[in-house]
């Protein structure tokens, strides 16, 4: 039940921070999305990508780890949303980064949502492996475990603070590259925390989420290099 409440709290706080950020810096729509109908179709496909990716990869990871049932995954959701966004942008002829529009909301959503995962304990299947470190947490099975949910929460919170402090001075840079930097940070930190989780490996020593993280890191790196190349060409 506590997870339900934190999910709602995460959603509300994510939407509020997102609205504040857009109003504060005059971001009416994602960059490059010019028409209102295009904006709505874009949000529609992102919703499908987010929910589809989240359910697909969340459930797949559960079954690979020998559990039954269905699950959600934020990482799977972000991966799915990126995939459909790039396809949409290709067909809509949008060549610039559109994602910064969603970044503050996403960072808050993950930071708050992960506290819900932490408080839900063992039933959520998002806990870490056993540790002897002093901050290990006993979720009720007598073992001290890595609170990986909080590691992720703090990492996203730190990213959000950097974004909010740095954005006013480097707005153009963040607009062009902010989403890819977010993907680098999100996938990077998640890749590390996954070593501290009890999920089965798919391709030794990586689990399903780490493979997704590697794809996302590659995507972000390629996009950032592409941006830099284009920037260099324009300044010549």
């Amino acid at each position, binding site marked *: *039940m506590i*997870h*339900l409440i934190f*999910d*709602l709290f995460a*959603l509300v706080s994510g939407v509020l921070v997102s609205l504040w950020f857009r109003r504060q810096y005059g971001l009416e729509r994602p960059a490059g999305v010019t028409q*209102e*109908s*295009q904006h*709505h*179709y874009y*949000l*529609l496909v992102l*919703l*499908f990508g987010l*929910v589809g990716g*989240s*359910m697909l990869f*969340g459930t797949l990871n*559960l079954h690979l780890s020998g559990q*039954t*049932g*269905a*699950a*959600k*995954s934020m990482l799977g959701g972000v991966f799915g949303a990126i995939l459909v966004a790039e396809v949409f942008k290709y067909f809509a002829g949008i060549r610039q980064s559109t994602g910064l529009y969603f970044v503050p909301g996403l960072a808050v959503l993950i930071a708050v949502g992960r506290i*819900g*995962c932490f408080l*839900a304990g063992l*039933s*959520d*299947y*998002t806990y870490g492996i056993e540790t002897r470190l002093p901050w290990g947490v006993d979720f009720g099975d007598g073992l001290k475990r890595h609170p990986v949910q909080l590691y992720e929460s703090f990492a996203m919170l730190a990213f959000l603070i950097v974004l909010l402090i740095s954005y006013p001075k480097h707005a153009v840079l963040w607009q062009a590259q902010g989403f890819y930097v977010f993907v680098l940070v999100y996938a990077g930190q998640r890749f590390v925390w996954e070593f501290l989780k009890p999920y089965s490996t798919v391709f030794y020593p990586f689990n399903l989420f780490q493979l997704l993280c590697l794809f996302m890191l590659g995507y972000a790196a390629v996009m950032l290099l592409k941006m830099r190349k284009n920037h260099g060409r324009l300044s010549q």
Partner: protein
Amino acid sequence: MFENTYSTGLSILFWLLWVVGLLVLLLFGFFVLATSTNANVLAVWNVSVVLAEGFLLFKTARHFVLKDIPMPKLLLWVAVAAIGVPFVAFGGCFILESMSYGLRIGG
């Protein structure tokens, strides 16, 4: 008032999503019945989901009949009702665990 035109294909898609939303509403309606006697907090959650679904389905159907908002916006809202609300409503990362709240407590 300006009247929008809706294509047949998108209208079918709209009503398909609307029916999915209705099924979600009925499922959570069942959860309300299952949790109302012995799990009040969960019952409040389930009632909130039913109200949110009901509001979205009513508004989208009304706008569709009146044709007073463009189809992309209408599709976005009905998709929120069909997949966005249930996605949040089931809560947690382990969905079956959340689903069984209604079923198990009811049983």
